[in-house]
């Protein structure tokens, strides 16, 4: 089982305490293989976001195990989990989550910087990516000057630029 690229085994997650406790996931096991595109579908409140948070190393399960590249990550310290997110995972957020005080190119370059602070040519790489996504005239625009579609493309650049899988 630990050889699986990505997955959860027997994962349970609850939020809240006592009477207010809500069980978001109950003993869920699901694995995803490398090179596959997987969709998680379900009604509102069925635990999709909680499952993605587990797989993205953003949340630890109350019970069960989370595997990323075959490694059980829920036993890691917070600092080690941060390193896993930094090195092994890419995100493209539905709500974009761009930094409002930074330009489009700085937003993308920040993704590179967080991955590797010593990486040379971050701005050039960010510029190349944005140009490939058709945003050559928006490099120095801040998020509030971009349309939702353009924000989505900047967010995609941030995610693709990190060149890591799994990709959420």
């Amino acid at each position, binding site marked *: 089982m630990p050889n699986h690229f990505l997955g959860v085994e027997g994962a349970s997650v609850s939020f809240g305490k006592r009477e207010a406790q809500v069980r978001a996931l109950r003993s869920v096991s699901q694995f995803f293989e490398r090179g596959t595109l997987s969709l998680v579908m379900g009604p509102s409140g069925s635990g999709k*976001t909680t499952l993605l948070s587990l797989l993205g190393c953003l949340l630890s399960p109350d019970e069960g195990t989370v595997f990323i590249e075959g490694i059980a990550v829920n036993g890691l310290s917070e600092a080690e989990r*941060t390193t896993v997110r930094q090195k092994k995972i890419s995100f493209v957020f539905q709500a974009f989550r761009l930094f409002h005080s930074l330009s489009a190119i700085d937003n993308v370059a920040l993704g590179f910087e967080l991955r590797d602070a010593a990486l040379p040519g971050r701005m050039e790489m960010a510029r190349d990516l944005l140009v490939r996504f058709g945003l050559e005239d928006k490099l120095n625009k801040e998020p509030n000057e971009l349309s939702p579609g353009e924000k989505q493309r900047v967010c995609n650049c941030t995610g693709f630029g990190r060149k890591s899988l799994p990709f959420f």
Partner: protein
Amino acid sequence: MENIEEYATLKALGASQAFVARIVLTQALICGALGSILGLLAVVPSIGYAKSLIPWIYTPWWLLLVMVMPSLAMCSLASIASVRSALTVEPGRVFRA
């Protein structure tokens, strides 16, 4: 801490605690430095006026620098609560709209 969501995003993308703390502290120090400059701009002209009224007033140049230090220290101390909030924010918030 109106930017708490941005700190959650930074942490989700793999920013270390030290990186996040450094950003908050840097912002506090920049605010402190700008405030000190504005304060000095107000104080320096008034020194001349004070001297015209009370001739024995002595204000060496280094006293102005010494005045800046407590303001920077106070801004750093005041940022501790913000640093704590930024460090404890759950990165899992990023998936909630």
